[in-house]
């Protein structure tokens, strides 16, 4: 079964609003990463947060990590139509020292102009 599960599965907002996506996972992790995918093809790395970090920022992105709840959230502030894409969280479980990256099912974000 997938390690990560995103919530909600789909999100539709107006341009300028904030978008929040959540990710839950099952096993202890080394780090958690967020990726973006346009049009069902290649993924682009957005941000990586290590297991000993609680919050990280990158431009309009803010990621939090709560290892006690095994959950993470991705906040996109002041959204733009160009942010429309699918967003995936991915984890590197501690048990798998080989480095397998396990993805969730994704959140489909639609930002309306």
């Amino acid at each position, binding site marked *: 079964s997938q390690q990560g599960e995103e919530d909600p599965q789909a999100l539709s907002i107006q341009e300028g609003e904030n978008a929040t996506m959540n990710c839950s996972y099952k096993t202890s992790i*080394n780090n958690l990463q967020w990726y973006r995918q346009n049009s069902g093809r290649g*993924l682009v790395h957005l941000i*990586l947060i290590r297991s000993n970090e609680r919050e990280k920022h990158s431009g309009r992105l803010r990621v939090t990590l709560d290892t006690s709840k095994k959950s993470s959230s991705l906040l996109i502030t002041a959204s733009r139509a160009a942010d429309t894409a699918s967003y*995936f969280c991915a984890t590197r479980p501690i048990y798998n020292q080989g*480095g397998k*990256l396990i*993805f*969730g*099912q994704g959140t489909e974000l639609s930002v309306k102009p």
Partner: protein
Amino acid sequence: GAGVSQSPSNKVTEKGKDVELRCDPISGHTALYWYRQSLGQGLEFLIYFQGNSAPDKSGLPSDRFSAERTGGSVSTLTIQRTQQEDSAVYLCASSFGIPMNTEAFFGQGTRLTVV
């Protein structure tokens, strides 16, 4: 190269035929991954290479699937006797070094359609 390159970008094949999908990782990246994504779904892990060896091939769905990597660079994913359920986008990614705390760089994928 500048990024991860996959070929072909699209492949239509008849059921029962064999297909080969190619991945050229970023130069110097020792870790290479193959994933599969069905329409509207998340990414399903297939196999992970560190150099030319595959320490984790647990995601290969059946013995019809195999992959190899040569020279620590190019990788080929082979699907024998393709079935319609093999239709998906096959994504390759690479990362630098032992990828415990590094990001993965993805190619644009190969969209495989089995008819």
